[in-house]
């Protein structure tokens, strides 16, 4: 049962990261390999804000969203936009961005080159203090449930609902869906598709930033912490079916649990190996993912 709860929290993180990736991939057909670095930035925002501003983990959630979203906006403007339609090139360019961001953090934002030290940045590992109320363990129905894991799940649920509302109930959402279904026609109808792209990219990056805050609560923060998340999250997107919100939720759930159970049963490495094999199997039998969205 505890394994299940841990799996649920892995799934929650996967879901938040994958959701951002799915929105960006669904709208622009672009895989942002710097998406993991948005997670890393979110985690560093938490480190810096708690060290220098004394902010707690709660107020870091919106702050990290904002910072990561701004980074996302900048990346979209500078790198992704000129490469529109050149899928594989975008992959390489965003990987370049990822390298740059990692190294900038490692050398204290570049100030390190001039001998200026910023506490909390750099290549050393960082820990984030978790507020005491989240450190407790609840006893429900004879099982121990760590409150922090439940908190992670709660945040993911809220973000999922907000995203659902945003995508299916707002004007922005309907334009977003229109762009991902038929970009040219939508643009011809007077929708500014570039603006939609930029906003989608920023929103996706912001989500990854929030995931970073949550991750910082149970993992050490380091410049290269983000990289593994992109691959795992992309696996979730692929397995769930691109452009299908419910599919992303369920496949994040399934993959998170698979990883958690295999990891408890043997170890973390086999957890990820099985996860990967599982996705290949899914793609073998359902090339479009578990849930196919009704598209044109």
């Amino acid at each position, binding site marked *: 049962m505890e394994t299940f709860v841990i799996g649920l929290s892995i799934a929650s993180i996967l879901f938040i990261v994958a959701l951002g990736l799915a929105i960006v*991939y669904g709208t622009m057909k672009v*895989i942002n390999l710097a998406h993991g670095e948005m997670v890393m930035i979110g985690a560093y925002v938490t480190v810096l804000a708690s060290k220098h501003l004394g902010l707690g983990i709660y107020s870091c959630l919106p702050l990290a969203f904002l910072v990561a979203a701004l980074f996302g906006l900048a990346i979209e403007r500078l*790198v992704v936009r*000129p*490469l529109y339609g*050149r*899928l*594989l*090139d*975008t*992959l*390489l*360019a965003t*990987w*370049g*961005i*990822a*390298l*740059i961001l*990692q*190294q*900038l953090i*490692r*050398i204290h934002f570049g100030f*390190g*080159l001039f001998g200026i030290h910023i506490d909390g940045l750099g290549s050393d590992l960082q820990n984030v203090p978790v507020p005491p109320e989240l450190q407790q363990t609840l006893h429900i129905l004879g099982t121990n449930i760590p409150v922090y894991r439940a908190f992670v799940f709660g945040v993911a649920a809220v973000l999922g609902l907000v995203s659902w509302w945003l995508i299916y109930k707002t004007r922005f959402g309907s334009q977003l869906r229109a762009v991902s279904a038929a970009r040219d026609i939508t643009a011809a109808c007077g929708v500014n598709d570039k603006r939609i792209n930029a906003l989608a990219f920023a929103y996706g990056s912001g989500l990854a930033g929030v995931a970073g805050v949550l991750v910082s609560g149970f993992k050490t923060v380091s410049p290269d912490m983000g*990289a*593994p998340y992109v*691959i795992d999250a*992309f*696996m979730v997107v*692929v397995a769930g079916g691109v452009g299908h919100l419910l599919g992303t939720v369920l496949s994040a759930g399934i993959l998170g649990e698979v990883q958690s159970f295999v990891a408890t049963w043997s*170890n973390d*490495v*086999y957890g*990820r*190996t099985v996860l*990967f094999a599982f996705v*290949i199997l899914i*793609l*073998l039998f359902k*090339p479009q993912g578990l849930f196919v969205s009704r598209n044109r």
Partner: protein
Amino acid sequence: MKERTITLAAYFLFFAVVFALPFALNSFWTNRIAVYLVYAICAVGISLSWGYAGILSLGQGLFFGIGAYMISMSLTLALPDNNPVPQFMLLNMEPNAPRDLCCATPGSFLWQPFQYLSIGVLAGILVPCVIAAVLGYVMFKRRTSGVYVSIITLALALIGQMLIINNQPLTGGFNGLADLAPLSVGGIEFDPYGKSVYYLVAAALLVVVLLSRLIVSTRMGHVLKAVREDDARVRYLGYNVENYKLFIYCLSAAIAGIAGLLFAVTSEFASPSLMSTSFSISMVIWAALGGRSSLLGACIGALIVNFIGSVASENVMLQPVWPIVLGLMFVLVVLVMPEGIAGIAKGWIAKLRQPRSLKEVVQ
């Protein structure tokens, strides 16, 4: 001059320089350049699959690493100290296990065939090929393409790396295989810092380039280019697109395997870092900088990036900046020069030739 003549001259010049270089270098630089030539071999493989068939494999490091590990296992056993069991295995042996490859540690029987060098070499080429065939078959039959292929191959390399680190008693774990005997074939010992290994690598590069050139200049090469541009149309024309893709992907994996073999011989180690994501993706940028759809360009790209890289990492001031430069290179190459150095060179050549042809038109 015809374009064909210019291309031929470029190839000739490149290989003339490559083969003449050792006479101007000390043993340290002979070894360094030999390693860069190994990378160039790998870049040729990427140029074949990405530049010609549009398959961007981000997991070439897996094949490269396998190649390196396979020959390293043979070379580890070739050291007299490591007879019959490699040193690192002794540390992991169960107290009363026999000192024999059959059962020193769980799975150590897998090492038994590698007592023969020929098997190590053969496995270094064939194992990548077989893995690529299985993976490629699954992917291409399912019409997986574009980013899916890239991400799946990337993830596979990541898993390979984790498995190697995780199976420490069998693979040497994080440290990899570092204590290798020098390659010796038929009584000739290849010294990594001497001309012998350099020429071995240079000859391999020549063979790989010529073979690849041969393949892309046949009808197959044209079909592959067509597949890159629009595979659905090629399929309608009755070609079996999947088989073409599968062939080129396997070939590219085998070339990466060969490069891995030679890497282990020149650098005298194999480690999990060869399968890291960043190394796999760096390989792609070598090909991209040089020109993805130019075999020679890819070679030159690999040489340039690695030369600058090693100069930068020896300089204390430049060392922290180098990853940023590398990152900028990714972004700028893709944004500004998608056809790489070869594309720019082609542009110049076209410009040089244009005035004359204009004059001819006027006359």
